[in-house]
């Protein structure tokens, strides 16, 4: 098709059609980007949940009573999972663990005080 031989209304309509095609490409790109971002966010959230669950379980276990081989295995597993996290998530996990550790110390202190009061 020779564009220069087109009639003015036809040329304008053709340009309009091409622009609408560009708009369609733009929206398809947007949908693809958005869905990809959502998928990545969901996967990261799932991974984070698994990791924090594992850490919580590990923390709640009396690690000193575990078999040393098992304990080592578990620690390695936790370490490997932590390496997969990004910096921000890792900081959040650390903060969460620190808070839990503080709470644990407070509870321990309270239990000591109550024991001494009984005696």
């Amino acid at each position, binding site marked *: 098709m020779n564009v220069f031989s087109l009639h003015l209304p036809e040329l304008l309509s053709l340009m309009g059609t091409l622009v609408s095609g560009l708009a369609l490409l733009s929206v398809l790109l947007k949908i693809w980007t958005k869905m990809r971002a*959502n998928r990545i966010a969901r996967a990261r959230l799932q991974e984070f949940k698994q990791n924090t669950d594992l850490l919580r379980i590990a923390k709640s276990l009396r690690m000193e009573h575990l078999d040393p081989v098992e304990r080592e295995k578990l620690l390695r597993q936790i370490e490997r999972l932590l390496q997969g996290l990004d910096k921000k998530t890792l900081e959040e996990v650390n903060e969460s663990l620190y808070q839990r550790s503080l709470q644990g110390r407070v509870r321990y202190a309270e239990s000591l005080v109550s024991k001494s009061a009984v005696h």
Partner: protein
Amino acid sequence: MAASEKTRAIHRFVQCILLILVLPLLPPGLEWFLTGTVTSESITLVASMYAITIGVSSKYKTLLAFAIIVSILFTAAYGSLAKERADHLAAAQTIKRAQPSQQDNQVVPADPPTNETNRSLGTSEDFGNRMRRYSIIAIVMVFLVHAGERFLRHVVEREPFWDLV
């Protein structure tokens, strides 16, 4: 619970498609239903109005910009078509006035218009078909663009649609 939320989201999307995208196409649909065809002027005007009305309901600035450009181009196409039609009618009236008065009551067989004349006047069937084709493609593109955006908003992002309560 999650499944029902997804179903609701799909319902919202379908409602939106029907109300925002399908309903405005009723006038050309009626024209086609009643006359069996849609003139190139009508469909060009519909493409222009459809693009701008759908564009302003978009939340994405890029799509709004595209819609404005499409609308301007089809408005210009419509204006150009209308002007040519008016020029054609004026030329026909001038020719009629230039005829001798005694021939006014006689039926004068007109020369069949050549394809080139029709094309220059914007009246040939081929030209009309091409104009219709471009306009319909543009309308379908605008429809798909906005349907895509609404899918993103109502199904992926779970945005409510017309929560009137």
